[in-house]
């Protein structure tokens, strides 16, 4: 079980890189004022959409992360 949990966390960590790819990597391809999206200039609209996507991705990561199951933060072993 330990190894399975470890690999799932690694997969979730990988998913967390998507916002970086989208937001930082995508901007060169949308760097023009028009078309306006929801009234916003294209780069601003792109970043805004990625903020929302990031929240969705990280909410999924939170839900699937084994670290968020069970009791919160067992007390430390050390005195």
């Amino acid at each position, binding site marked *: 079980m330990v190894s399975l949990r470890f690999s799932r966390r690694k997969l979730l*960590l990988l998913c*967390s890189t998507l*916002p*970086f790819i989208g*937001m*930082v990597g995508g*901007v*060169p391809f949308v*760097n*023009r*004022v*028009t078309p*306006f999206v*929801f*009234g*916003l*200039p*294209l*780069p*601003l609209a792109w*970043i*805004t959409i*990625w*903020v*929302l996507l*990031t*929240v969705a991705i*990280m*909410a999924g*990561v*939170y839900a699937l*992360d084994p*670290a*968020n199951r069970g009791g*919160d*933060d067992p007390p*430390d072993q*050390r005195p």
Partner: protein
Amino acid sequence: MSVALLIILVAAAGALLLGLAARRGHDMDLEQWSVGGRSFGTLFVFLLLAGEIYTIFSFLGASGFIYGKGAGAYYILAYLTLNQVIGYWLLPLVWRTARREHLVSQPQFFVRQYGSKPLGILVAVVGVAAMIPYLVLQFTGLGIIVSIASYGAISRPQAVWMGAAIVTTYVMISGMRGAAWNAVIKDILILTIVVFLGLYLPLHYYGGIGAMFQAIDHAKPGFLAFPARGNSVAWFQSTVLLNAMGGFMYPHVFSSIFTARGSRILRRNTVVMPLYSLMLLFVFFAGFAAIQQVPGLTGAAIDLALIKLCTQTFAPWLVGIVGATGLLTALVPGAVLLTAAATMLANDLYRAGIRPAATNAAVTRLAKALVPAVAMVAVFFTLRGGATIVALLLMGYNLVTQFFPAVAFSFARRNPVTSRGAFCGILAGTVCVVAITLTNITLFDLLPFLPVALRDVNVGLAALILNLGVTAIVSAAASLTPATVETQN
């Protein structure tokens, strides 16, 4: 006395009283004073960490940056979001170490993780040096907003002195608790004001947000996208990455992590926080609205854009509320910064470097006594003036980002970085940032053979790469010579 002035003074008195009342029922020992006794739940932790999003920087700095530079300011929204993604993975690790070792400050974290006292002292010195411009930034914004919103009844230096006196008083008495209580009021106020300004100003002057952007695009073609030079795409990308790494490395943000009651609170916070930072869109809208309504501001004066537009648009009572909000928006981060800086000076420089035998009580007394001293230094630099709010923030960020590699590597199962490697790397990176800032050099000046596309890359990246290189070389050298192998955590 005008209505606006009255509202600002009432808010100032209210902030002071609330900050003082926060002490009730708590014995202010070092742990209680500096990290709220590690007892804060979701709301307080959220507001303390969110305090980073809504400092006076986002209010005046972001709108001023939009006004002066246009698209470049979008970086703020992107880095705040990506910073939280890094935080999801990093904060619980930091928090767990802090609880296990009863840490109250960031330098202690380095001392425990690397078993090296000199490293802790270096981190304390660099951390305090990076917090001063951040504090100056809060006081600068406070001076601007209070003097303009009071229609000149309170001069800028008077406003700075008043703010410094209030924040110093309640920090000495209540520490982090004073900041947390004021943060609740401040965030409710600023959210309301920001959304209102961001919707009303474009509607009032242009007939809507979409219409406003079309008007700006017509008047200044290309202003709404990243330019080819200056705040270009390469600048955006490098700055976003650097600040996303550096965000939690500010000593006061780092120790805000310690105030949490549990690690899940931190993860939940990082998931939701980007939604909260989305409110910056409204600050952007207000900044854009100012472009054609208060034209002609240049240099450091771009920070005045939003508040000037307010006085030109609204009745005095509303301007007073905006001014009062600005005051609180500067006081809360100011309190957190003062608490962290004073704790570091007393605990991590005085006790760690000069007098190891000092008791907790003596260190706490010294930390409280240092609060006015730190505030005075910040007031001094504020009144000297000069730089824009964003320029100050970017320099501070470049300094603290130097901590990121050593923090991240310290959680590796087998940390390849030695304490000497971390020490030399941080030192090299810091010297590089200071040299760059003092000489105003760009990456292109350093490396003229770079292709055009890379010329505007944030110079902080050069410092970070130098830091990583030195860290790697020194760490490798230390592990090659068995005699110098150090005992690691």
